[in-house]
């Protein structure tokens, strides 16, 4: 639906934004996404039955330990999983159409224009030998081949301005920019075509706090301007608290809990979420913070039953044998834990 608008070069960007604001229902629906990596040492199910929805303008935080499958999810949504990984099933519906059913060329067109990705390693994500401008222009050109040179340039400069960068950056090379600036260039590229969904994979993990704050505020601003849904991937709960509306907790390839930020911080349901929250340092409770015992499981040899049970303080006998299924609690929170069996 929206693709028609995007492909109309005559229509100013503002018009698209205004129209997008009017949209109400879920802009993104991820259903039963499954990804497996076929490695020499066995099959690793990196995404297992992942489902969630997101409305336009909504910001989702995706947290979880290293290796829990966060980046895999992002890549799966972009359909950029490479061998030895394979998307085994599920759908990613963005604004009505399922990305998984698109042919390769349509999927290429959908990237950036419908679903954009802001990479983790912004430091190295810009081509070192061409100007920033050229890299923005070719992104636009690949989607709007008929748009004129001047229009494209104007669009790019506008994008740079919207992330608080001097339009002069257009003529610069990547190595002439600081880390934060590079990250913002990536954001600018991400919003060039006003996508419905922006996925940002740890956009600030390489930056220091001050810059991190700057970048996050930038994302926040542009997201508001185009009313896109944002998925922020990271493991810094502090950042989540500052930025997102909803938090999804991932554990060993599964979403174990999805709830609003406030619910998550005040009343985490899943024992893993609880451990996560209580491991957080804050100004109030100096000296009282503790980690989650044990280690993240290997995807190759997942514990039976609930993957978290070996580290779970409230594990019950059947947790070791029966795998819990996601359930929607009253109020719309989704939890995957036997503790809440029967509450749904």
């Amino acid at each position, binding site marked *: 639906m929206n693709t028609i608008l995007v492909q109309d070069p005559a229509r100013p960007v503002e018009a698209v934004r205004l129209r997008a604001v009017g949209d109400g229902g879920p802009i993104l629906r991820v259903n039963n996404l499954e990804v497996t990596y076929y490695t020499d040492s066995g099959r690793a199910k990196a995404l297992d039955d992942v489902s969630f929805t997101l409305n336009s303008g909504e910001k989702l935080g995706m947290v979880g330990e290293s290796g829990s499958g966060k980046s895999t999810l992002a890549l799966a949504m972009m359909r950029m999983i490479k061998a030895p990984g394979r998307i085994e099933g599920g759908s990613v519906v963005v604004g009505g159409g399922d990305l998984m059913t698109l042919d390769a060329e349509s999927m290429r067109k959908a990237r950036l224009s419908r679903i954009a990705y802001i990479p983790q390693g912004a430091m190295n994500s810009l081509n070192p030998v061409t100007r920033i401008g050229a890299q923005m222009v070719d992104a636009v050109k690949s989607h709007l081949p008929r748009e004129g040179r001047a229009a494209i340039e104007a669009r790019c400069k506008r994008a740079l301005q919207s992330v608080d960068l001097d339009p002069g950056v257009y003529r610069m090379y990547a190595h002439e920019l600081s880390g934060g600036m590079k990250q913002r260039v990536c954001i600018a590229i991400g919003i060039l075509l006003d996508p419905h969904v922006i996925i940002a994979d740890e956009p600030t993990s390489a930056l220091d706090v001050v810059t991190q704050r700057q970048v996050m505020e930038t994302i926040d601003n542009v997201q508001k301007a185009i009313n896109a849904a944002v998925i922020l991937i990271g493991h810094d709960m502090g950042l989540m608290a500052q930025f997102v509306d909803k938090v999804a907790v991932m554990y060993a390839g599964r979403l174990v809990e999805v709830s609003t930020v406030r619910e998550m911080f005040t009343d985490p349901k899943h024992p893993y979420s609880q451990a996560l929250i209580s491991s957080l340092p804050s100004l109030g409770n100096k000296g009282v913070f503790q*980690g989650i*015992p*044990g280690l993240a499981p290997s995807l190759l*040899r997942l514990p039976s039953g609930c993957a978290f049970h*070996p580290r779970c303080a409230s594990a019950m006998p059947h947790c070791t044998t029966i795998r819990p299924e996601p359930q929607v609690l009253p109020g719309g929170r989704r939890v995957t834990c036997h503790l809440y069996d029967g509450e749904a």
Partner: protein
Amino acid sequence: MSTVALSPPILKQVERPSRFVLFLRYLRRNKGLAFGVLILLGLVAFTVIGLMTVDLKQAYPLSVAAKKPPSWKYPFGTDFFGRNLLAAMVVGMWQTAFIGVFAGGLGTLIGVVLGFISAYFGKWIDGTIRTVCQILTPIPVLLIQVVIAGSLDKRDVTIVTMALIVVLLAWMGPTLVIRSQVLTMKERQFVAVAKLSGVSDLGIIFKEILPCLLPFIAAAFVAQVFSAVFAAFYLAVLGLGPLREPLLGNIIWAAQSQGAFFNGWWWWPIIPSIAMILILGSLALINMGLDELANPRVRRSE
């Protein structure tokens, strides 16, 4: 006291395959390397079995009937001078291997030693070694080798002198490679940790850095062997090698000067050519594979 909980026991013991098995598995992923190793093993087997079973006297002139095409009796035929090309290939391969390994080994050794000295001690030593290497690099080595070989007394030209000529200007490559690797290694934190553990300079070189450089050294060695074989071949093809020896280049050179193709003795130049192609090809493949092994970013991981 400690608030830290123990990690839970790992339920299933992850079996750890031996390095050899891992290497075999790696070969399965890195087809080029596997192919190269396979060819090379084949050549080695050919040479070793040949050395044991073939009458090596037949690698020299006037030992068998001349100009016979390949047959059951002479699988590779015989040449104008009455060499059994099978025996000649065996000896030639062995000599090529000798030159390659000797020159390659020596060149690599010099390179490793200089590279380490240069990188580890830095300052003017590094400056000197690096500048000398960089200055010598643009000089077309093969030409200089030709010049040197050409100004030698013919009686002095033996397999060993050939190898030495090759070494003479062939150590700069490994020196620069090893030097830059040591430099990056030196900055790696495990070196800092080793220092903190009281390890001496020499200990750091030999126990910490050297083992990590093994893939690079191996790659440099193979590259070195390649260029040594190549250079020796060139010298021989130009007629600058030890004439009597059945070096592959010599045989091709002799075939050329006797008009082998025109006379219909095609097997005479073709067989050593194929042998040369197999040797150089397998070395190139192995080199490529080792490059990949040495460069973890490129390495095909499990």
